[in-house]
């Protein structure tokens, strides 16, 4: 039987065939007649336990052949009742819970929550400057670890195991340094209401600058492996396009939103802590496909390192927590030697910090976008309500819209670049 075969872009060699202005790529052999088989729609279950799915999420796909016709996205497999637990915990006891929201950038969650409570307490201007700089530093370090994890794992799922190990190697340097700062690689609980729990260790600045330099090398290396890599580009270019209008309509922020052209970064647009003192750029994409999201994250890492260098230069000396016995724990030497400090210690821990009644929505730039905390206080030491606005909840909600029409294989890079963190999405 004579068949006419059209050359695939792969066989044609060279760069992927791109019509001017269009970046849609068609792969595969097109042979008429025999292969135009009628297909039945097949329901296919992907997850919740799946090697290529980040976190636990279930997608029930309707596929025809390889093409997805509909996606039923089911999240919630990692729901651990953060908001309910927060109602029974004192404000300080909630910090370990926030660590476990976006668990690849825990410091950013700590920061978002602490800022919300401090605003309710009306002490947001009284947090010492050194503490604010420290928060920016550890926050940006966490942002870099978030992007490294996302890109490393995303590349690995496309077969680039080397990139995964290189990124994790660099991530380990940051985790080790964060462990020196807070005592844990991931579950830092480093911040406190009114400041941070302890000062930075000695030699921190030198170590961090060294890590930044080495990380730049690692990112460059990974870029050399991926940016012009035929397989990588073919799988990422033009896949999972989100338009800027869709991003705004669906509430998609962070690198995913910026990749569409939606220029919004909370650090620049609604500055908090001391972000207004730094020069940094915000990476904005144009197409909104997987590759743009990848590039936005790479560029954001570079900008975070820029912020870190400036912060290390500008950080002043001073106390690292507000000096109010009703808010901070007294030093141990005082606690054991004075009844006032003993009582203050006792009440701050047992009763919690009394936050005046009120409600607040406070938002910061998390690893995945606008991370919001809505807290209602009733005057006692425990919040009445503590709601988290998870950025990846909105980000992930667009998947049932952009996945249909793509192949099953496209789910992997798309989901990887959306970067759903189960802990944050499901709380």
């Amino acid at each position: 039987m004579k068949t006419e075969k059209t050359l695939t872009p792969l066989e044609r060699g060279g760069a992927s065939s791109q019509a001017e202005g269009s970046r849609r790529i068609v792969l595969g052999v097109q042979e008429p007649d025999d292969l135009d088989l009628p297909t039945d729609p097949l329901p296919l279950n992907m997850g919740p336990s799946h090697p290529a799915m980040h976190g636990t999420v279930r997608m029930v796909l309707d596929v025809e052949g390889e093409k997805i016709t509909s996606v039923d996205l089911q999240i919630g497999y990692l729901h651990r009742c953060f908001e309910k637990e927060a109602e029974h915990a004192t404000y300080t006891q909630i910090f370990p819970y926030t660590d476990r929201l976006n668990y690849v950038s825990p410091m950013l969650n700590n920061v978002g929550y602490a800022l919300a409570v401090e605003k309710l307490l009306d002490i947001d201007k009284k947090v010492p400057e050194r503490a604010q700089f420290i928060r920016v530093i550890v926050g940006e370090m966490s942002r870099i670890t978030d992007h490294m994890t996302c890109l490393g794992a995303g590349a690995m799922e496309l077969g680039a195991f080397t990139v995964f190990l290189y990124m994790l190697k660099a991530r380990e340097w940051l985790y080790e340094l964060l462990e020196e700062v807070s005592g844990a690689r991931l579950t830092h609980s480093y911040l406190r209401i009114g400041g941070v729990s302890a000062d930075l260790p000695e030699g921190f600045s030198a170590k961090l600058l060294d890590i930044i330099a080495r990380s730049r090398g690692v990112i460059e290396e990974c870029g050399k492996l991926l940016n012009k890599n035929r397989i990588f580009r073919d799988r990422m270019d033009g896949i999972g396009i989100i338009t800027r209008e869709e991003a705004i309509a669906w509430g998609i922020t962070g690198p995913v939103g910026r990749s569409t052209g939606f220029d919004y970064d909370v650090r620049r647009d609604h500055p908090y802590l001391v972000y207004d003192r730094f020069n940094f750029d915000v990476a904005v994409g144009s197409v909104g496909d997987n590759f743009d999201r990848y590039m936005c994250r790479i560029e954001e890492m570079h900008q975070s390192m820029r912020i870190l260098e400036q912060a290390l230069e500008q950080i002043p000396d001073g106390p690292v927590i507000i000096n109010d016995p009703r808010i901070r724990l007294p030093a141990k030497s005082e606690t054991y030697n004075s009844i006032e400090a003993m009582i203050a210690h006792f009440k701050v821990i047992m009763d919690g910090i009394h936050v005046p009644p009120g409600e607040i929505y406070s938002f910061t730039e998390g690893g995945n976008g606008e991370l919001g905390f809505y807290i209602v206080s009733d005057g006692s030491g425990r919040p009445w309500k503590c709601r988290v606005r998870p950025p990846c909840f909105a980000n992930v909600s667009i998947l049932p819209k952009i996945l249909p029409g793509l192949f099953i294989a496209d789910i992997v890079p798309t989901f990887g670049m959306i970067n759903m963190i189960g802990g944050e999405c499901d709380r």
Partner: protein
Amino acid sequence: MSELLTKTPGAVGAPPAPLKLVTGPPVPAPERRPVVAPGTEFVTVTIDGHPRQFPKGTNLLEACNQAGAEVPSFCYHAGLSSPAVCRQCLVDVKGQPKPVPSCYTPVTDKMEVITASPRVLDIRRQMLEFTLLNHPIDCPICDKAGECTLQKHYFDWDAKYARNDGVKVEKAKRVDLGRHIVLDQERCILCTRCIRVCDEVAHQSELTMAMRGDHEILTTAPGRRLDNPYSLNTVDVCPVGALTSKDFRFAMRAWELESTPSICPGCATGCNVEIHSSRGEIHRLVPRENPTVNKHWMCDEGRFTYKRVHGGRLVVPESSGIPVEWDRGLADAARLLRDGLDRDVARVGVVFSAQSTNEDLYALSRLTFENLGLTRAYLAGLDQGWADDILVSADKNPNTAGALAIGGGRLKSLLDLSNDIKQGHLTTLLVVGEEGVLGSAGAAALPIDRLEALIVLAWRRDALVEAARVALPMADFAEVDGTFTNRQGRVQRISAAVPPAGDSLPGWEIVSLLSDRLGIPLEFSGTAGPLPAAGGAGPGGPATAGGAEGPAGRSSTLETGRGRGPTARTVFLEAKHKMPFMKDADWGRTSLPVQLRFAHTRG
């Protein structure tokens, strides 16, 4: 960066707005309006700029607290005289050059009070600083931590670190003051509340202050010990952990305790108490304020009645001494009763107990008098004991009045029971509540072996249970919802604080099950529409008539096919309808146990 949506309290279920305070405790005290007799003269007092009306002669401290302007105090207690020694309650009154002690000042017309001026706040800080100057750093080992007034006032009003060098006056730390109390002299803040309790409540002045200045200590009068029958009230009123109860010392942390309102079962006075329990175990009883019954106090003996709930209980039904399931136990009991009834109704007797709740007694009276038509009924209970004119009754049973009223004059005494058995008038005996059935005369007085069948519904394992043919376990006072009637005829509600021990069930429920087995179901007609809204802290129990109430109330699980069975409330409502002495009784609201952690301080 962040938006403060609203800072005004009152939004989204937050507690109501307090008066505008300069500083102070963030959680305002709830508004308390006392009941006033008609014809009381009212005066206008302006507190922090807000004019309010108060009955003439109201204590200014009480007035400020009622208005929502919290004024701290140590030595003031609503049930005691007011010496104004601690000086913590000083407030500014317009026209007075010096601040006045509000606990000692009655309100007068057109008084203007400022409770939070800078001078007043400064004075509060200074007084707290003085008080804390020699206070030992005992919080980790002090029983009062978590419910300590000193901790609360320091955190609300002072919150400044120490200015002194930390060298403190040393005094005696573990003074055995008397039968129940240990004194820590260093912790004492010299408020003299305990002295006034002994003077004014117990009328035995055993406590006194000795020495002066920094070295002032609390001690007993020479040659005396603190052993009056109301001594443990001093532990309640002590604002700090100076006076501690030997029974409760180091037993449990205050914030782990849950508080359930109930009535003391020690005597017919029926003092209102709170049962403090944690994880199903009761740790102490403390008095609840009731102006008409016990004011703020209770006697020491009553405090220890909680011990009987956890020791020596009968936990499983027993038939001929062998532990059996409820099904078997009820079947055996019913069979014995049926045999006795078939042979001769006039030779079946029933013993009511003055320790039972009204609901238990009512269910039993319906079974025995209405359904079975028994003629021989007796009343048992603990023997009379000592009494005084302060709180203690000679009648050591909590519900004698209820038992007599429900029995309706048909109940005879234990002496008659003894005689009847001896003379062979009784073959079968059903005892509901074995407390005191044997009485002080002991087993010899009741010739139980002359009975053919003895069925006992018992709280504890004692000799009567050993001798019984069938013994069914009953839930004790702290495990059930119900009512007791005190010597004043007042019907007071008890609530379940801990789950019933083992397999025990409330008395009325066992009676109802027995009645079913005998073929004459007790259908309680106590319906009165939906439950009133749950009060206080809890989100409310299930608001359906017939749903479980409290931790112990559960519908009978043995009757399949009956759906939701009656609850104690159902029985109560029917009894209230039928019994004239209960017509004014109030079941009250479903009260879920309140964790003491959220209750700030007591005393």
